[in-house]
């Protein structure tokens, strides 16, 4: 075995060679495509980035089922679901623009860092041209920013923070789900009617963008009908035991507890609150009440008996009776043996909306797709007539006020619809103070 003899000259030469080697990549030209991940070979890849672990895992796994169902429908498999009820008839069940739809999945772990790593690998490795998913607004905002930089479309899944289409809105990001402001606007009148004008509310709030903006929205809306906000306590997202947060509520003089919690957090905090007997208490001569502004079927199932009579709001519910809902619920139920949650529905709708926008634009180019989605009015996906507003890429549609069913007839009949709040009541100006401070910027096609 020969020894490597090192001399000063040798090192210099070696260093120069390494330098050239490092500089070489810049001499290659980038791919000559007009936009990031332009589909090749007759197939197009969508990236489904959902929490499969962490406090929102239930929601994420349900979203994944719906996304897979949407891909099947787009490729002309199964019964076609909402393709027949959707008012836009651009989709023919032959994939998107003739390209067969394939998908990759990733786990966000309900953490911004992990979600971005997962989305990046989908974009860089698997060639995903659209990212769909979420279930935490912090994650959705982080991934939306990434998609903007990478030049792909982000179709937000379940994200309810005002910031997603407010302060942190991006030209490449679109949200079908409703938001904290809309929840407040829909809930406040119902709460006023049920519980009266003279109430004192205590807020427990998940400590991140969604919790903050929802708390702000609910407090503003309820104060608008005469309620008083006694206190707002922030709780870490990763908490699993809320007893220490519930105990002070009893001595605060509040008679309503607002839980700005979601997923596993809400199941745990509500269960803690019931264990402390809050609902059996009388404060200020009134029955103590609990409100959960953002509801989902999966949370209701997790909380079981405890949610009886508790009010909240939803984007959509499988019990609605319009054609779009019926078609989707039938299709989902036949495939998975249970009704879909509202997080599943929003992901399903977003996937179809993306595909439809591609068809109408005649391209996968994010700028073309964004233009096709902006100001798009449609119906037949389950939410009634809906508008994708161009100013902030937020969908406007009716909002549901629901409450925990008093006498559930089966395992899935956990929530009953109290009121369908009309779209006009939850609309707001794009420059509303709760949404101000950001700018869409320009659409970025990448490459």
């Amino acid at each position, binding site marked *: 075995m020969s020894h490597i003899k090192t001399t000063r000259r040798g090192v210099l030469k070696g260093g120069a060679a390494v330098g050239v080697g*490092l500089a070489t990549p810049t001499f290659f030209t980038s791919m000559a495509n007009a936009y990031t991940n332009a589909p090749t070979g007759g197939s197009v890849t969508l990236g489904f980035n959902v929490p499969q672990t962490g406090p929102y895992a239930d929601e994420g796994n349900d979203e994944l089922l719906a996304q897979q169902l949407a891909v099947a429908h787009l490729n002309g498999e199964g019964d076609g679901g909402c393709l027949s009820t959707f008012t836009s008839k651009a989709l023919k069940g032959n994939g998107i623009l003739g390209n067969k739809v394939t998908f990759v999945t990733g786990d966000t772990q309900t953490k911004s860092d992990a979600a971005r790593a997962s989305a990046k690998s989908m974009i860089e490795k698997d060639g995903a041209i659209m990212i769909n998913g979420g279930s935490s607004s912090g994650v959705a905002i982080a991934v939306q*920013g990434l998609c903007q930089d990478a030049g792909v479309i982000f179709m937000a899944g379940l994200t309810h923070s005002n910031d997603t289409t407010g302060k942190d809105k991006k030209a490449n990001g679109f949200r079908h789900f409703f938001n904290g402001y809309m929840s407040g606007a829909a809930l406040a009148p119902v709460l006023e009617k049920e519980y009266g004008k003279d109430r004192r509310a205590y807020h427990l709030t998940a*400590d991140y963008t969604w919790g903050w903006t929802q708390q702000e929205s609910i407090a503003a809306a309820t104060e608008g009908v005469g309620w008083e906000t006694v206190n707002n306590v922030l709780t870490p*997202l990763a908490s699993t035991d809320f007893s220490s947060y519930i105990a002070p509520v009893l001595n605060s003089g509040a008679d309503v507890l607002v839980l700005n919690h979601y997923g596993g957090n809400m199941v745990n905090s509500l269960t803690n609150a019931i264990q402390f007997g809050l609902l059996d208490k009388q404060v200020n001569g009134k029955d103590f009440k609990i409100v959960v502004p953002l509801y989902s079927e999966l949370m209701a199932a997790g909380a079981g008996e405890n949610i009886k009579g508790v009010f909240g709001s939803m984007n959509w519910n499988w019990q609605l009776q319009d054609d779009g809902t019926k078609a989707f619920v039938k299709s989902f139920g036949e495939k998975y043996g249970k009704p879909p949650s509202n997080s599943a529905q929003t992901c399903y709708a977003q996937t179809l909306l993306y595909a439809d926008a591609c068809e109408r634009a005649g391209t996968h180019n994010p700028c073309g797709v964004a233009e096709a989605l902006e100001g798009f009015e449609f119906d037949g996906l389950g939410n009634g007539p809906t508008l994708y507003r161009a100013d902030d890429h937020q969908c406007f549609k009716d909002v549901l006020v629901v409450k925990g069913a008093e006498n559930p007839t089966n395992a899935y009949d956990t929530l009953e619809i109290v009121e369908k709040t009309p779209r006009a009541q939850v609309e707001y100006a794009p420059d509303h103070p709760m949404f101000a401070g*950001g700018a869409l910027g320009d659409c970025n096609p990448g490459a």
Partner: protein
Amino acid sequence: MLGLNKKDSKFLLIVIALTVCTPILLQPFPEGSGLAQFNAGYPDLMQRFAIYGIFAIGFNILFGLTGYLSFGHAAFLGVGSYSVVWMYKLLDYNVIWGLPLAIITSGLFALAIGYVSLRRSGIYFSILTLAFAQMSFNVAYSVLTPLTNGETGLQVYTSDKQILLGANEPNSPHLFGLVMNQSAKLNVGDWVFTFNIGYYFCAVIAILAFYLSLRIFRSPFGLMLKAVKCNQQRMNYTGLNSRPYTLAAFVISGMYAGLAGGLLASMDPLAGAERMQWTASGEVVLMTILGGTGTLMGPVLGAGFIKYFENIFSKINETVLHSWFSWLPDGMEDAIVWVLHFFVGKGWHLTLGMLFMLIVIFLPGGLVDGASRIREWYKNRKGGGAASSETSTTPAE
């Protein structure tokens, strides 16, 4: 060369060669084949290999040399990231401002935490560092939210000042115009190799970091640290004050972690509080142990191993499994997929945990130990046992 002996120079050259060729080495399967799933040669993951390599190298200076097991290194990672993103927000996207600041702030942090924690050793030291890291996490998560933006993570907004921002400056992290997320693709037959600027930037820094740690390992200072690990009590009895040495090692490894954190933010302009959580601190311990504590190359291998699992195995879902086993009869296919799906996708932790157990039980010296055993076995077979254990070299050291 460069103050290294012949063996170390060769070792360093090998490391440099491996690092330069990473985009090719990690892309062994042609695009479109079923095995392309296992390719890891895409920019984000390669960057992570280099960055977590730096993190683990730095951790190894403390843990491998002095034996002090810190459970709080993620705090420095987070501090580094926040420093860089703040420089983006205040000055501009050039990483040249943020990275030195990241090293300085994390060094100061390490000095403060180390000064207190190093008064104790063993388990008490570990617990103290863990406590400090968890404190930093909670402070970043919910107390200092104006500074860290809490759970959402600190990011750059168009409304930020960015006083140095030029008219034509790239709108993402760059080094004097070399944009980090730009890459060039090279098509060779069915293979696609991606050469990414960000990766090579990290790689150059990683090599420098590696070289520095090599020098530390070989220096009298390194010997002193090894003495601490060997028998600190005896060292103290001889009249030596070992604390300045351990504190220096702690600060150096904290600065390495800060640099790694800064690089994370240089590749992706976002800093999240969860980067500081104890799980992240635990991860670097796993990396070091998995690769081989106290060896030079081990921690880097361990870092690559864990990041590979996190990013590649977690993306194998049931659909992929079904496509692999579709040639089996239906019932059998479902059964196999049902068993395997616990170990891939979201179950990647399980696979990693089992491998970790196997390695710790059967290869106490980590992956490097495994490599040296294979080499020895090979040598013995070839030389008919002539090369006894005395002449066999401990690799990587």
